[in-house]
């Protein structure tokens, strides 16, 4: 299951929980990715909308792909406001062998950026401004204008 939390993530707690979960599963490798809000463009933070049903389905497809390689993926993401220098995203891949984990985390994070139904806003003066210039059209975009 995708884990969603309001506000910034307690990364150490989530990492600890996942690591401890993994210890008796006989995985040899755990690779994790943490995304932290950078202080740039004079923002106070970022804010996120998440559409859970399609996010979960997208994630389930990745979990099946991981399973076929003997691996497991976990992810957690923020909903709402995340201040500068706190974290909004953590993902981890567990696998018996390191190559699988190193390759999967890379592919997973890139596809996450391109296709996970999450919308990002800059927070400035308490207002949310859609980060359109950093956003990506999902696969299949535009069909409603294709008549």
């Amino acid at each position: 299951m995708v884990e969603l939390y309001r506000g910034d993530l307690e990364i150490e707690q989530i990492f600890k929980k996942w690591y401890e979960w993994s210890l008796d599963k006989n995985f040899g490798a755990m690779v994790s990715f943490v995304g932290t809000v950078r202080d740039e463009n004079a923002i106070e933070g970022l804010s996120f909308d998440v559409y859970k049903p399609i996010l979960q389905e997208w994630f389930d497809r990745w979990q099946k792909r991981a399973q076929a390689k003997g691996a497991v993926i976990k992810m957690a993401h923020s909903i709402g406001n995340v201040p500068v220098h706190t974290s909004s995203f953590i993902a981890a891949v567990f696998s018996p062998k390191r190559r699988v984990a190193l390759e999967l985390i890379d592919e997973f994070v890139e596809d996450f950026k391109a296709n996970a139904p999450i919308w990002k806003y800059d927070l400035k003066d308490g207002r949310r401004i859609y980060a359109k210039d950093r956003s990506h059209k999902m696969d299949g975009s535009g069909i409603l204008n294709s008549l």
Partner: protein
Amino acid sequence: MVKVEFLGPIGKEPMYIEAKNLKDVAKKLQADPEIKKWLDECAVAVNDKLVTSLDIPLKDGDKVSLLPPVCGG
């Protein structure tokens, strides 16, 4: 009636329209200038499944979602 919902930054309340398929939905949305400007950029889901074709029949109670450009992480 089919429910059309606008996710993320589109910031519009759901619409309820008569439509027998996704083509009907496309025609009606193209007629609204506020919505039309989003259509090139939006992916589409029917009952929370992403679709890549307009040849999809719809029935009463179905839900069509518009997903504008994303940026998680």
